[in-house]
């Protein structure tokens, strides 16, 4: 593990990515302690205050401090995106490996279903699911997980198909191992590296997707200060108080870039040719 981190830091993208994400993590952990005000504290006189000494990143239409809202909102955004991606990955990876292991009609059935689901664009699918589930933070999370699973299954299956041809899998079958064991102990460890890389890159999509769902009113609900919601709220005042959109927008973009860079770095660091 430390070895992996060391190798991650040797690549420029990895070092940048990890640094950004460490800051984002710190904000998630310590946000409330760092925030100068309560995110819900209204200040009538400070309405639409421009960024300055009193409100570093300005204030919104109720005079709430934008920085405090951003710091609190990180907790509603980043962990949710991470969780949604992980759930989607887990389901997708297991499904993809199973499909490759079972082969034949099972494989066809699973993959054709996935094709059908993937024919719907990801955002549209997430929207569809979220609105069917009635909106809210949890349904947004679930929607993203479901929208991600088919793509992950695809990627995992292609790697798992190669692993399926390896003789150690044949040896396990000949030995009479159970299918569950072959999938989880023999195949999954060998397909996990590309899956991890794909997962980190997808977290950045999830951050944006979550923000989009909130922006459209299907995700977190006010008074939460989830970043997408902040953008949505600020949109009305774009002309008078552009910082209300720019600040949370930048936060979304920076954390997305962080996960993207981490993914690029991991791809190099996990390259099996020079592993261990």
């Amino acid at each position: 593990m430390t070895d992996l981190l060391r190798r991650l830091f040797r690549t420029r993208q990895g070092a940048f990515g990890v640094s950004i994400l460490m800051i984002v993590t710190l904000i998630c952990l310590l946000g409330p302690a760092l925030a100068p005000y309560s995110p819900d504290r209204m200040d009538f006189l400070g309405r639409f205050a421009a960024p300055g000494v009193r409100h570093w990143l300005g204030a919104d239409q109720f005079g709430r401090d934008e920085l405090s809202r951003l710091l609190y909102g990180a907790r509603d955004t980043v962990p949710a995106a991470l969780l949604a991606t992980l759930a989607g990955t887990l389901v997708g990876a297991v499904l993809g490996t199973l499909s490759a292991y079972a082969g034949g009609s099972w494989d066809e059935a699973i993959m054709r279903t996935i094709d059908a689901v993937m024919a719907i664009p990801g955002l549209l699918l997430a929207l569809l699911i979220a609105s069917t589930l009635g909106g809210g933070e949890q349904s947004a999370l679930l929607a993203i997980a479901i929208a991600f699973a088919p793509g992950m299954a695809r990627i995992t299956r292609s790697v798992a198909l190669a692993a399926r041809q390896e003789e150690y899998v044949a040896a396990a079958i000949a030995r009479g191992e159970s299918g569950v064991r072959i999938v989880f102990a023999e195949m999954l460890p060998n397909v996990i590296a590309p899956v991890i890389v794909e997962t980190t890159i997808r977290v950045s999509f999830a951050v944006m997707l979550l923000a989009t769902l909130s922006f459209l009113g299907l995700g977190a609900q006010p008074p939460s200060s989830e970043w997408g919601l902040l953008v949505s709220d600020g949109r009305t005042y774009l002309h008078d108080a552009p910082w209300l959109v720019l600040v949370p927008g930048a936060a979304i973009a920076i954390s997305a870039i962080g996960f993207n860079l981490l993914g690029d770095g991991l791809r190099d660091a996990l390259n099996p040719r020079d592993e261990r």
Partner: protein
Amino acid sequence: MTALLEVRNLTLDYATGRGSFRALEDVSLSVEAGEVLGLVGESGSGKTSLAMAVMGHLAGNARLTAGSIRLGGAELTALGPAAMRATLGRRIGMVFQNPSTSLNPTLTLGRQITEVLERHRGLSGREAWKEAVAWLERVELRHAEALMRRYPHEVSGGEKQRVVIATAFAPHPEIVLFDEPTTALDVITGARILELFHKLRAETGVAGLYISHDLGLVARVAENVAVMRGGRIVETGRATHLFAHPTHDYTRRLVDAVPRPHRRLVDDNPGSAELLRAEAIGVSYARRRLFRASPAGGGIDGVSFAIGEGEILGLVGESGSGKSTVARALTGLVRATGSLRLDGVPVTRMRHDYRRAVQIVFQHPDSSLNPRHRVRDILARPLRLYGGSLAQIPTLLRNVNLPADYASRWPHQLSGGEKQRVAIARAFAARPRLVICDEITASLDVSVQASTIELLLQLRRQHGTAYLFITHDLNLIRQIAHRLIVMREGRLVDRLDVKALGSGREHPYTRALMAASPLPVGEETGP
């Protein structure tokens, strides 16, 4: 007279992450006009690096630190890329191991030859076409005109290699480099390619540098032989003399390791008790799928045989004959028709006790061990499945002549031979009664092959295990098997006692296989 190709004191280094690695050290050799020099060595001996150096085809991290390569007196290492390209193909022809990757899949076979002819001999399009057809006929391809319009994937491996040979010889080069040209082909096809090479040599008088790990092959094609080891040439000499009277220690070991059909390694006779009987085993790879049908092919049909307690049964045949499918059917890796009897009791489903009794070792050491599991975990699986204690792991390793501390290693930290030993240990962890060995030495060097075979025989003496030994190497199987079965195109064509080989009673196909196997080197009298 100066040599046609002269390599002098060549030293080649590869820069790696951990400093530099010396691939060739002070290598000198020369090939006279019209002569064929064989270059023998095991994997990692530097023979391919040498060929690449001659072709100026070195990897980015390679550096020639000393020495010279001269072709007809002109220094090759000093040539710029453009001049080198003009020399390659025109003056040096090349034939590589894998015909599938040496032809461009997007060009017709005809185009691949005419391109060479236009470039190196300046022929016009129509002349080149005519000349190319003539060359395809010279390499004994039928329907040359039709083949000109085909793509590489539409012809067989042997045909592809003939086209590669035609492109190598067509510009009338002075020397042709062969890098394991028959290794990727099956025995009979390979033997025919060698015949073709002999014929073309006689016609064109071209010189050759023939690289191979197979001493028998080299003895057949080359007048002179150089033996390489660890980047150095350890011995050179006339092929006939060198293999019969090797002076260098390494050459002697190499020659000794080559299987000789008449030197039996097994002298006992197995008892008459029958262990496993396979009756009319059939496998069809045609499968009905949900949305499309996949075409049939490569299956087996009506294969029946029996293996006695402690017997070594050889299963031979060319690639694609269905040998491995038999192994897969016996171990339940493919769905098969027919019936199996273990100790006379019908095997209806592959139960635990059957799987335990019948173990398998696969061909590719790199693929048969899970790269994410340590040796300890690999050996622990059969022990857990079939009952056994993890405390046996050191013993299992010691039984295959590996140190006990290998238990904590990862597969990639082992050599090919060591990996194969772990795979053997894994099979023996189940205390099997029959071990199916599917080409287990095919990807190993000849000296490693010899020690692996020795290990199998030692294990058999300890445990009385029977083997179904699948191979394409008749010389090897004749040393160890009690009986042979021969397969061709999915069917059993011959079933005979190993002593009956050469008696004239064998099937014509078996005789053809025997004729195609290279004679063992260093043996004065053939069979």
